[in-house]
């Protein structure tokens, strides 16, 4: 069953003007339920744009996006996805628990139900004792776990993440990757994950989508076969390194083109 279907989607900014940017051209992507898919590529390859098309925060110039068998707009209204960004983006004036309740409040849930769900989510991210603290009293990694709890509070079938661990140190980052896999496994959530890091993409994903800039497009889709149970030993496995090499080579292609594109621009 497909949780997400992007068909022939393009996004052109400032169309027809001198400042026209082809952020995405003819992108096709299908993600099945329960899959973990990473989008990776150099800056300007349109990976964040693609994520925002899926989230319906941007409208495609052409093509269609369907989430959970609905139009992206309907899926957003129904809160069929949760979202997490590089900055945890928790509200300073709300306690940890109230931050997790935010999407439920917007959906009109009553207080008792909200509090019960927030408690459940705090158990899930293993921070139950922090319910009544304020976000600025927590470390960066803890804040990001709360942001994930918030994104998953309404039990959406799809989780969209835009470089969520980009601001964390390496140790915290690896710990968070393990936690994310555990949480998504327990909740059977489908994930689309934007990242700059090759090992991160490989460790987390069933599929790594490699993108390239000018115009933004998908250049390779690499299946990662590391089994469904991944742990710290996975990071030392041969398959892990092989997949990293494959992704790296696919990315190098995009960088060569990137360089060529720059050279042409230089001649202009």
């Amino acid at each position: 069953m497909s949780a997400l279907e992007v068909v022939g989607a393009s996004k052109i900014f400032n169309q027809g003007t001198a400042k026209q940017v082809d952020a995405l051209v003819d992108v096709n992507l299908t993600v099945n339920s329960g899959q973990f898919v990473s989008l990776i590529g150099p800056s300007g390859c349109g990976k964040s744009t693609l994520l925002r098309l899926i989230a319906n925060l941007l409208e495609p110039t052409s093509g269609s996006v369907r989430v959970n068998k609905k139009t992206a707009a309907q899926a957003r209204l129904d809160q069929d996805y949760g979202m997490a960004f590089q900055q945890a983006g928790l509200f300073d004036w709300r306690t940890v628990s109230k931050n997790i309740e935010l999407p439920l409040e917007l959906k009109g849930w009553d207080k008792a139900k909200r509090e019960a769900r927030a408690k459940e989510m705090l158990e899930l991210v293993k921070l139950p004792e922090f319910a009544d603290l304020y976000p600025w009293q927590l470390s960066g990694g803890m804040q990001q776990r709360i942001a994930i709890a918030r994104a998953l509070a309404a039990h959406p079938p799809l989780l969209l993440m835009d470089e969520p661990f980009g601001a964390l140190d390496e140790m915290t980052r690896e710990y968070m990757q393990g936690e994310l896999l555990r949480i998504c496994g327990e909740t059977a959530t489908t994930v689309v994950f934007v990242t700059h890091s090759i090992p991160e993409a490989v460790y987390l994903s069933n599929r790594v989508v490699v993108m390239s800039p000018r115009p933004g497009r998908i250049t390779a889709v690499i299946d990662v076969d590391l089994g469904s149970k991944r742990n710290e030993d996975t990071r030392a496995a041969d398959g892990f390194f092989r997949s990293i090499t494959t992704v790296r080579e696919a990315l190098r292609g995009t960088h060569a083109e990137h360089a060529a594109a720059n050279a042409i621009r230089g001649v202009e």
Partner: protein
Amino acid sequence: MRRIAYRSSMFVVAIASVVALWEFYKIVGPQDGGKLFGVSILPRANNTAMPHVWTMLSRYNRPEVRGSDTKIWSVVLSGTLFSLRLSLVGFFLGTTIGVGLAVLMSRFKVVQRGLLPYLVMSQTVPLIALAPLVVSWGGKLEIGSFVWPRWLSASILGTFLAFFPIAVGTLRGLASAPAAAVELMDSYAASWKQILFKLRFPAAVPFMVPAFKLGASGAVVGVVVAEISTGLKGGIGRLIIEYAREATGDPAKVFTAVFGAAALGITMSGLVALSDVLLMRNRPKETSA
């Protein structure tokens, strides 16, 4: 708690230093003022221009006019309370209008572009020129059985000075919500109203509190100036003007009213500071400066 103790002790020290400076100047300053290149620069240190601090304070316990039973402290106190009521009305109206305008301007960029220049210009109109106008407009106003009381004109002039910093501060505050947070709310398909109340207003609080402080002192200045220029009876502004006329015979008298006005300003900003403490108690400490 220690911070409060420190701050209140600093307050006492600050007042004591001003008193000390005042009395020091009375000892060393020239009795009839000092001239520099023919221009009077140094104030007169004599008892008519600068009464001793204890003369001013003891004046509070003497009758307002010779032979009267009413002590001056009760006159100044009731005048200050009268002006405080007017300032509160002015501040309340100013807050309503200021916050309302800010919401309107943040909702519609067209309104912001069209209105903001006029708001800025409005503040360049001298209050003294405006006061008689407001009084005469108010006098002509009749809405059903509502009769415009004279004191309301003074409050309106307080409003006039209070609304501007509140509107500008709130507008900046509403716009200060990070783009990522707005995007997050959009991803939840939150309505404009939900975004306003759950994100923009809470994010605006650190900008609104200082704006309220400016607005509160604006309301006091507006009311006192309006009392003076429209001759409204009962307030501290009128007392200052009346007592100033007796400055030669009873120099300490006018200072009793001036201190009343100062107490009024401190009370108003104290009320706002209280809201600051309440609203900011759960915020990160760096931003609560």
